[in-house]
C-alpha cells in the first residue's frame, strides 16, 4: 500500500510542477508581445504622464520576475488582475478599479460556472451512452451493427466541431424547433430553462466525445478478448454477454477510466468552438473575444484555467489507472 501512495504522490507532485512550468510558459509567451500597452490604449492621446499612470495601474512598471510571481501568487488566490479592456474604460471614465467590476475574476466567475455546467451536462449524457455502445460494439464485433456504428463514430470524430454544431442547429432548432439555437443564459434562470438552453451545445460536445470514448472502450475490451482466461470462460459455455460484462469488463476498467478522463480533458478544447457557435456565455467565448481584443490578463487567466483543468484531468486519468490496476493494489 505504501508504494502505491508513493507512486500517486509522485504523480501529484509532477502534475503540480507541470502546472507551475506551464504558468511560466504562458507568462513568458504573453510578455513577448511587442509594443506598449499604454500607447495602444491611449492612441493619439498618449502623453508621458498618462502612459505612466496606466502602466502603474496595471503593474507594467515592475521587473519581469516580480511581475510573474505577483501574478502567480495573486492567481492562486483567485485574483487574476484587471481586464485591460475594463482598465482602459475606467481610465477614460476617471473612476478607480475599486468597484470590482473590472477585475478578471469577476468576469470569469459566472462564466466558469456556466462552462462547468455545460461540460457536466455533456459528460452526464456522453459517458453512459458511449460505454453501452462500446460494450455492444465489442459484443457484436464485425457485424453490420459494429460497422454502422464504426462509420458513424469515425465520421463524427473527423468532422470539425462547428460542422456538427450547425447540423444539430439545422435539425433540432431550425427545421424542428425543439431547442433554442442560441444559449442565452443569465442569472436567476430556473434549472429546467437553463438545461433546455444548454442542451444543444451539450449534445454537440456529446456527439464528438462519445465517438472517441466508444471506440476506445471497444478497442480496450476487444484487446482483452484474446486472453486465455476469456478463452476459458468461453469454453465453459458462458454466454457472450456474460463473458464481456463479468470477465472482460473488470479488467478493461483501467483503460476505460483512462479513456473517460482523457475525453473529459478533450471536452475542454471542444468547448471553445462550441461556445462560440452557440454564443454560450462560458470561458471559451470569453477567451476567443479576449484573443481578438488582445486583452492580456483575460487571455492569461483563461489559458491558465484551461491548462489547469487539462492537467488535472490527465492527472486524474493517471492516478485512477494506477489505482484500478489490481497488480499495484495487491502487491505480492
Amino acid at each position, binding site marked *: 500500500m505504501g508504494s502505491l501512495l508513493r507512486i500517486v504522490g509522485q504523480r501529484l507532485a509532477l502534475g503540480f510542477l*507541470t*502546472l507551475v*512550468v*506551464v504558468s511560466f*510558459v*504562458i507568462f513568458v*509567451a*504573453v510578455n*513577448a*508581445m511587442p*509594443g506598449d500597452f499604454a500607447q495602444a490604449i491611449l492612441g493619439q492621446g498618449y502623453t508621458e504622464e498618462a502612459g505612466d499612470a496606466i502602466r502603474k495601474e496595471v503593474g507594467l512598471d515592475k521587473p519581469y520576475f516580480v511581475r510573474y510571481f505577483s501574478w502567480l501568487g495573486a492567481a492562486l488566490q483567485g485574483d487574476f488582475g484587471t481586464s485591460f479592456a475594463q482598465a482602459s474604460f475606467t481610465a477614460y471614465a476617471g473612476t478607480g478599479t475599486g468597484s470590482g467590476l473590472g477585475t478578471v475574476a469577476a468576469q470569469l466567475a459566472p462564466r466558469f460556472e456556466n462552462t462547468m455546467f455545460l461540460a457536466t451536462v455533456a459528460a452526464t449524457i456522453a459517458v453512459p451512452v458511449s460505454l453501452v455502445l462500446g460494450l455492444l460494439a465489442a459484443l*457484436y*464485433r464485425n457485424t*453490420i*451493427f459494429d460497422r454502422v456504428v*464504426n462509420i458513424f463514430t*469515425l*465520421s463524427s*470524430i*473527423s*468532422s*470539425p*466541431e*462547428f*460542422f456538427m454544431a*450547425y*447540423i444539430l*442547429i*439545422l435539425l433540432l432548432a*431550425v*427545421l424542428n*424547433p425543439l431547442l433554442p*439555437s442560441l444559449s442565452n443564459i443569465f442569472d436567476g434562470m430556473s434549472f429546467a430553462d437553463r438545461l433546455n438552453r444548454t442542451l444543444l451545445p451539450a449534445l454537440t460536445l456529446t456527439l464528438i466525445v462519445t465517438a472517441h470514448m466508444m471506440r476506445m472502450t471497444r*478497442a480496450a475490451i*476487444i*484487446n482483452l*478478448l*484474446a486472453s486465455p482466461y476469456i478463452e476459458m470462460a468461453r469454453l465453459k459455455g458462458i*454466454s*457472450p*454477454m456474460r463473458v464481456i460484462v463479468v470477465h472482460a469488463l473488470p479488467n478493461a476498467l483501467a483503460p476505460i477510466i483512462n479513456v473517460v478522463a482523457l475525453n473529459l480533458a478533450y471536452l*475542454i*478544447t471542444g468547448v*471553445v*468552438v462550441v461556445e*462560440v457557435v452557440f454564443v454560450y456565455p462560458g470561458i471559451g467565448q470569453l*477567451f*476567443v473575444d*479576449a*484573443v*481578438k481584443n*488582445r486583452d492580456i490578463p483575460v*487571455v492569461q487567466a*483563461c*489559458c491558465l484555467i*484551461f*491548462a489547469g483543468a*487539462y*492537467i488535472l484531468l*490527465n492527472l486524474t486519468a493517471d492516478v485512477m489507472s494506477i489505482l484500478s490496476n489490481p497488480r499495484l493494489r495487491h502487491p505480492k
Partner: protein
Amino acid sequence: MSALTTIAAIVIISTLGGWMFRFAGQKGSQNAPYFRDMPYGVAVGYVLGAIVLLWLAKTYYLGTTLEAPASNQYFFFVKAINLFVIFALAAYVFRIFGRHVGTAGTKKLFRAMPVTAAFGVMIIIAYAVTAIFAGVIAPHGQDQVFALANVVPGGDPALGGNPDFPLGTDQIGRDILSRLIYGAQNTVGIAFATTLLAFFIGASLGFLAATLGGWVDQLLSRAVDVMMAIPSLIFALLLMTIASAWAGSEKGILTLYMVVIIAVIDSTRVFRLARAVGQSIVVMDYIEAAKLRGEGLGYLVFREILPNATAPLLAEFGLRFCFVFLTIASLSFLGVGIQPPLADWGTMVRDMSQFINFAAFAPQVAVAPLLAAGAIALLTVGVNFVVDWMLHKSSGLKE
C-alpha cells in the same frame, strides 16, 4: 404526446417483432444454426434496423413526391440520402476500377480494400486534383466581387438563383463555387505544408534525441512534456494573439505565423513517436557499424534511421494531417486563422453561418455554409477511413 406513443409503438413492435422474426427464421430455415443460436437482442436489433430503414424510405418518398421538392422541409433529408447513395456508388465503382486498372501492386491493394477505404482514397485524390488545378477549374477568381450579392444556391431563377453562379454568391458578391474550389488549394495546401513542417521539426528532433540521448534527450523531452500539458487549440490561440500583435496590420504574414505556430505545437506529437521509433532503431547493429565507420550525426539521422522509420511515420502523417487541418479550420472559424482575401472553408462557414436560420422556409439559402463545413468534414472523414483501414491491416486487432 404523439412522440411518446411513437416511441412506445416502436418498443412494442421491436420486442414482439424480434421474437417473431427469430421464430419465423427458425421455422423457415429448418432450424439453421444461424437462427437457432441467435440471441434475442440480435433479433430485436434486426427489427429495429428494419424500422429505421422503412422510416428512411418513407421520408425519402415523401420528400421527393411532395409539391415543390426544392423548398419543402425534407429538402436536406433528400439531399443527404442522395449524396450518401452517390458517394457509396462512386466508391464502389472506384474500387472496381482500381481492381482492373493500374499496376499489379495497386490492383492487389484494391482487392482487399473495404468500400469505406476506397471512398477515402477517392476523396483524397479528388481533393488533391481540385487543389492543384484550382486556378483552371474555378469559374471565377477567389476574391472577385460581383454586383450580385446573396444569390441563392441552386441556379434556379425562380428561387432567387442565377445560372452563372451555380452555388450562389456570398454577402459581398463573391462566387461561392469558386471560393470552395480555391479553398481546397488554400486550406488543404496550408494544412499540408504545416504538417510537413511539423514532421520535419518533430522527426529531426525526435531522432536527434534518440541518437544523442543524455541531456539533449532529457531537455527536449521535458520541453515537449510541458508543451503537451497545454491543450493544443488553447495554446495555438494564445500564440496567435501574440502573433497578431507582431503582425500588426499585415494580415498576410499572420497566415505564415499560424503555419509555424501550429507546426511547432503539432511537432510535439511527432517528436514523441519519432523518439520512440528512433530508440528502437538506434540499438541495431547497423547503427553501431555506421558509428564505427565514423559517420556524422546527419548521416546517422537521415541515411540510417529515417529510411527505417518511414512506415510508422507515414501512418502517423495521415492522422496528424487531419488534426492540423481541423485546427486550422477551427482557428479560421474563430477568426484568427487564414486571413482574407484568401478563400478558406473555416472563414466561409463563419461568414455565412447565419444563413442556416433561413432553412425552415428557404432551404436553398442554408446550403452554402453547410457546403463549406461539409468540405472540411468530407476530407477528414476520407483520410480517417484510409488510416483506420491501414491501422486495421497492420495491427493485430483481428478478433
